């Protein structure tokens, strides 16, 4: 301590100056690296979203054709409205809509309309047989190739033999466009329809309802069981080897690949218990297996974060352990528990592999009426669509991913909201 008096000289010495410079430089480097990492993350996010949006936005509209369908008594007999020749009705309407085109040609152009047109007509007439003899004006979806054409996804310059539509077909469609029959409204069918072989009719309703039932089952199973397990482990279990082993195993379970849980579900739920294949209820049980460790870990962390002073205060007043937990610790830990649960559920919502193994990737054209009906889920629906060859499914796959991402963002926003709302400070 002899040189305390010449401290000033020390600070300005070449060595000290270099030292300060070095410290500043390393701080700058660290900052730069951090900024770089964040920029890369944002760039990736931007690329992902922009590629999804640029292909997916097409699926949010659908080309429709306005047609007048004359329900003639020759085509549809009044005594048997369900057995009428609606295909003929549609062809008649197309012939009428394409004046100047030979009748045989124009009849073929009925394929401009979606296959669903004849069934829509049949349903209308069966519901109201007095329509026979009248003319119904309907906006029916155009079939996938014409939808692609109208959205500019089919290049007219491509040589005819390489094109999905030949010149007469394009000419017929253009004639309809000129007649002002073509419109491109918002594609509500994407949400209100279930899956279909035809892209113009395919929607996410079945997947949304299936995912909802699966998540509901998952929540109802994993939330109480997870919280119960966490409370026992954290508050009541004796601290010994056995509880250590249990804790390590729970942490390991959280890291088990989800496909393994799918195999377990296949072996136990389907083969051993004989539960319904493809059912959202079984899907929910499988997802609950995955979500449980997440919820248990989040709950234990939240319980641990409650200050011991609150426990002591309640214990010191003569509260029993159970009263301490349920009246003081659990309410204070609730925001953390809810956040963990929602994040666990968000993970479960996006989980595909275990659902594939229990058959939730089946082709199912009706939304499930109950958790026990066969159904798909959002991620498996994306998987099915991504696998489908029709051009229309390309944009629908991206649109479905956007819907899934929308739900994930919504769930995370709820988690953040709950955390901020119920967070208490001591």
């Amino acid at each position, binding site marked *: 301590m002899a040189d305390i008096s010449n401290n000033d000289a020390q600070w300005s010495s070449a060595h000290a100056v270099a030292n300060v410079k070095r410290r500043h430089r390393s701080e700058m480097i660290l900052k730069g690296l951090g900024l770089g990492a964040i920029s890369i993350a944002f760039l990736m996010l931007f690329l992902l979203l922009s590629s999804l949006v640029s292909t997916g936005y097409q699926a949010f509209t659908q080309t429709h054709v306005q047609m007048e369908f004359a329900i003639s008594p020759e085509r549809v007999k009044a005594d048997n409205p369900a057995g009428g020749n609606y295909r003929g009705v549609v062809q008649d309407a197309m012939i009428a809509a394409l004046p100047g085109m030979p009748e045989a040609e124009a009849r073929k152009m009925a394929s401009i309309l979606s296959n669903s047109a004849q069934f829509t007509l049949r349903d209308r007439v069966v519901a109201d047989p007095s329509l026979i003899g009248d003319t119904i004006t309907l906006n029916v979806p155009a079939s996938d190739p014409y939808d692609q054409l109208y959205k500019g996804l089919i290049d007219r310059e491509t040589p005819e033999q390489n094109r999905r539509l030949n010149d007469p077909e394009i000419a017929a469609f253009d004639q309809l466009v000129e007649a002002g029959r073509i419109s491109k409204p918002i594609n509500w069918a994407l949400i209100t329809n279930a899956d279909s072989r035809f892209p113009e009719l395919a929607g996410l309703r079945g997947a949304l309802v299936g995912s909802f039932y699966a998540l509901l089952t998952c929540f109802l199973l994993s939330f109480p069981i997870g919280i119960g397990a966490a409370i026992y482990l954290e508050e009541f279990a004796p601290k010994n080897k056995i509880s250590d082993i249990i804790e390590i195993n729970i942490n390991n379970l959280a890291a088990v690949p989800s496909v393994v849980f799918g195999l377990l579900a296949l072996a136990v739920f389907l083969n051993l218990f004989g539960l319904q294949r493809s059912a959202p209820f079984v899907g929910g049980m499988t997802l609950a297996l995955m979500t449980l460790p997440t919820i248990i870990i989040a709950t234990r962390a939240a319980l641990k974060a409650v200050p011991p002073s*609150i426990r002591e205060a309640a214990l*010191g007043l003569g509260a029993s352990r159970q009263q301490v937990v349920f009246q003081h610790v659990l309410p204070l830990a609730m925001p953390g528990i809810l956040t963990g649960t929602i994040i666990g559920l968000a993970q479960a919502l996006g989980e595909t592999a275990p659902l594939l193994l229990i058959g939730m990737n089946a082709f199912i054209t009706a939304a499930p009426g109950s958790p026990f009906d066969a159904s798909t889920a959002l991620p498996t629906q994306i998987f099915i669509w991504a696998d489908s060859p029709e051009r229309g499914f390309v944009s629908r796959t991206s649109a479905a991913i956007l819907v899934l991402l929308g739900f994930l963002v919504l769930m995370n926003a709820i988690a953040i909201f709950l955390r901020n709302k119920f967070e208490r400070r001591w």
Partner: protein
Amino acid sequence: MNDMRIVERDVDITKNKITARGVQVYYGTNHALKDVDVDILDKTVTAFIGPSGCGKSTFLRCLNRMNDTIDSCRVDGEIKLDGENIYDRKIDPVQLRAKVGMVFQKPNPFPKSIYDNVAYGPKIHGLTRNKAELDEIVEKSLRRAAIWNEVKDRLDSPGTGLSGGQQQRLCIARAVATNPQVLLMDEPCSALDPIATAQVEELIDELREQFSVVIVTHSMQQAARVSQKTAFFHLGNLVEYGETGQIFTNPQDPRTESYITGRIG
């Protein structure tokens, strides 16, 4: 400053509230408290003093079995409250803690309303039959803790919103609401400023009329100001126990003298 002023020592009470004989406490293999014998009188303030880690808080927490919550802790020996061994099998620690209230070092009100803080003890022990009785207990307890006038208009506001000193008095109100026979205080003023400390000390003196108060303190001045009996702990041993005046003016043990005069601690 008359910090070392020693309160009038008219210890006319001779009835023992708590008798401890041969108390040993182990934390795992660490022998934290060695063979402590103490008689704590009824309606008296007893202070435990001693340097950090000497076992005074450990002993205090034996008196309402708060040490039970620590897994590695083991207590041997005998502690009798009104002649009943509180470590007996048939004693329920939950009931015991209603009789032996505790105030902690750091004010720890529940993050609930002031009213609910005080009403919690009577509620869980079923001391009241209706809301009116509960209201009465809450008011009485807050008055006993000398905080009623400050909070009577905002009983519904959160207890955590009060100042530190008010929070500590709220905790005292909460502890007295179950009408305990003994009130244990673990360094109740160490987190408070001097004014709040003075208020709490005044309060302790008033509480003596109803309860036996045991207070652990770091501050010898505080022990001198509030207590009638003082016990000096050192390295897990009860070194000396006697009337506060005698301990501070005429300690029998050289270690006590060293501590009082500031040579150890």
